[in-house]
């Protein structure tokens, strides 16, 4: 038996919005510590890793570890039926091949429940090595979203160049080119609006904006976003989900062709 109730249901709604465009379906792994999900998009360019800790739910009950194969588009459709103030409860039996969502209004007057079929999915789990990244940039999530959206007008990919002075995002295309430079400003009063850079070594990497725009769907989850980069390894884009977990996106860089291949 699995049961998890989240008083602030809107958080789950936002999580779904953050992943449903990138993944059609995914396996939710549930154990006593919480729920997690790891999946690559169909083209194997990016990966979503989502963690929701058990402490965030009240109550949380997981008698037996289970993997739930879920069609995320359908789940998101059902979650659209919940109001932002509603609490959301997820239930699944040990046998059975369905999952149930219960939405409750704050005063308990209205209770709706939806049942959904589970899917058979085979997923490869990827081992992600612990890496110390040469540059870790924290910036306001809305600012990052704006940058990705603006630069997609110019080109298909963005080059992120990180030095100790700041971070520069550049794109070029048929109509011309564009650069956006952000300087560190850790001194502002509002923590959420700070841009901070922790750097061991400068790095320059190029990424497809198409995927970054998918990642930015997570913007409503968190005021700040963290970009972790090292040369020639995938970028990590992380959004905290309140106190209860995080969603991390990994994106393979674009690689300049060596002359001989």
């Amino acid at each position, binding site marked *: 038996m699995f049961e998890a109730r989240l008083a602030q249901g809107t958080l789950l709604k936002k999580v779904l919005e953050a992943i449903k465009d990138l993944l059609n379906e995914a396996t939710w792994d549930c154990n006593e510590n919480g729920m997690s999900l790891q999946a*690559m998009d*169909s083209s194997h360019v990016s990966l979503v890793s989502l963690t929701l800790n058990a402490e965030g739910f009240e109550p949380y009950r997981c008698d037996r570890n289970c993997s739930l194969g879920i069609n995320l588009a359908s789940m998101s459709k059902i979650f659209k039926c919940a109001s932002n103030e509603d609490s959301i409860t997820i239930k699944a039996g040990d046998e059975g091949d369905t999952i149930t969502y219960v939405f409750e209004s704050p005063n308990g007057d209205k209770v709706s429940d939806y049942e959904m079929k589970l899917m*058979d999915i085979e*997923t490869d789990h*990827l081992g992600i090595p612990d890496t110390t990244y040469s540059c870790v940039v924290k910036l306001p999530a809305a600012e990052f979203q704006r940058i990705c959206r603006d630069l997609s007008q110019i080109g298909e990919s963005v080059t992120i160049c990180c030095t100790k002075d700041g971070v520069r995002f550049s794109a070029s295309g048929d109509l011309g080119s564009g650069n956006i430079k952000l300087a560190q400003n850790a001194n502002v009063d509002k923590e959420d609006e700070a841009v901070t850079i922790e750097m061991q070594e400068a790095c320059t990497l190029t990424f497809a904006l198409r995927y970054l725009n998918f990642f930015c769907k997570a913007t409503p989850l968190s005021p700040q976003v963290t970009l972790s980069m090292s040369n020639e390894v995938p970028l990590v884009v992380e959004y905290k989900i309140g106190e209860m977990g995080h969603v991390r996106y990994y994106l393979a860089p674009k690689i300049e062709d060596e002359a001989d291949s």
Partner: protein
Amino acid sequence: MGIQGLSKVIGDYAPSAVKENEIKNFFGRKVAIDASMCIYQFLIAVRQEGNMLTNADGETTSHLMGIFYRTLRMIDHGIKPVYVFDGKPPDMKSGELSKRAGRREEAQKALEKAEEAGEAENVEKFSKRLVKVTKEHNEECKQLLGLMGIPFVEAPCEAEAQCASLVKGGHVYATGTEDMDALTFGSTVLLRHLTFSEARKMPIKEFSLEKVLAGLELSYEEFIDLCILLGCDYCDSIRGIGPKRAVDLIKQHRSIEAVLKNIDTKKYTIPEDWPFEQARELFKQPDVLKDSEVELKWTEPKEEELIKFMVEEKGFNEDRIRNGCKKLQKARHGSTQGRLDSFFKVTSTTSTKRKSTEGTKGGATKKKAKGGFKRGR
């Protein structure tokens, strides 16, 4: 022909070894393609009103059309193809080749008969069976590939074996062929339907040797023995032993020698002078170029020479060839998207499959087993 019924065996015993994928998901991959097999396919498939395409002088151009457009299709999807041409067939294949020659003669006779009787449908059927890839076809394709800047390798012997060795050596990701014996030669990944036309909307089937072996619970050596029992190009198989029994026998006895000791020789006639050991050796140690002897370079297309060859000599439309050239050039410039699975490795696989759905899965594998592509009939 490859290995008889191998794809069905895999579908039955190791369904998880086969994955269907769209061509666009293979971007960034280098793939070795069995050239002779796909030229043959083009000669059969690229036709107009049942006849091969020709230029004004009546020379066949189906193969060039195929190579040009299907290569462009792969390039468009970010795949980097390498073509591998057959060398001289191994001595052990002579039996199979003479059988094929016999079938051609039959087809020739049948064609004459059909022509006399004026049966258009049969004329087309039998003329397709007469198709043969000639040296000229191969040479023209090599010339075209050279002008397109696509690398090709001339195998000393069987192309599938050379492809497999390129995969094992890490030069390429997979072998693209319809012949299942690429797996027997040790290609870790085999892609089917890669060179099919866009219009057929055929998903690409990816076979993983590792998962095939895991599903069959066999080692690679045992798998080779199984393939020989199923029927390969290099020696006969034992009459009366079909796919099911072959799998059972190998699983029980683990080698052809042990199988021979244990089966009822009255019931099954073992062919005289059965050179299964040589066939096994051929699969294990085929005659191929060493890794260090192979160099793969994708280069700029030579546009003007390409126009001269394709448009002036072979009568293709100039605009289309120029357009193709643009695509080749575009693919060479700019950066390519990396793949996440080349950075992170798969550590485990979870399945959410439930018992109640086993039945439907079985049905799906049955379907997969059908529709194999036959060659050389």
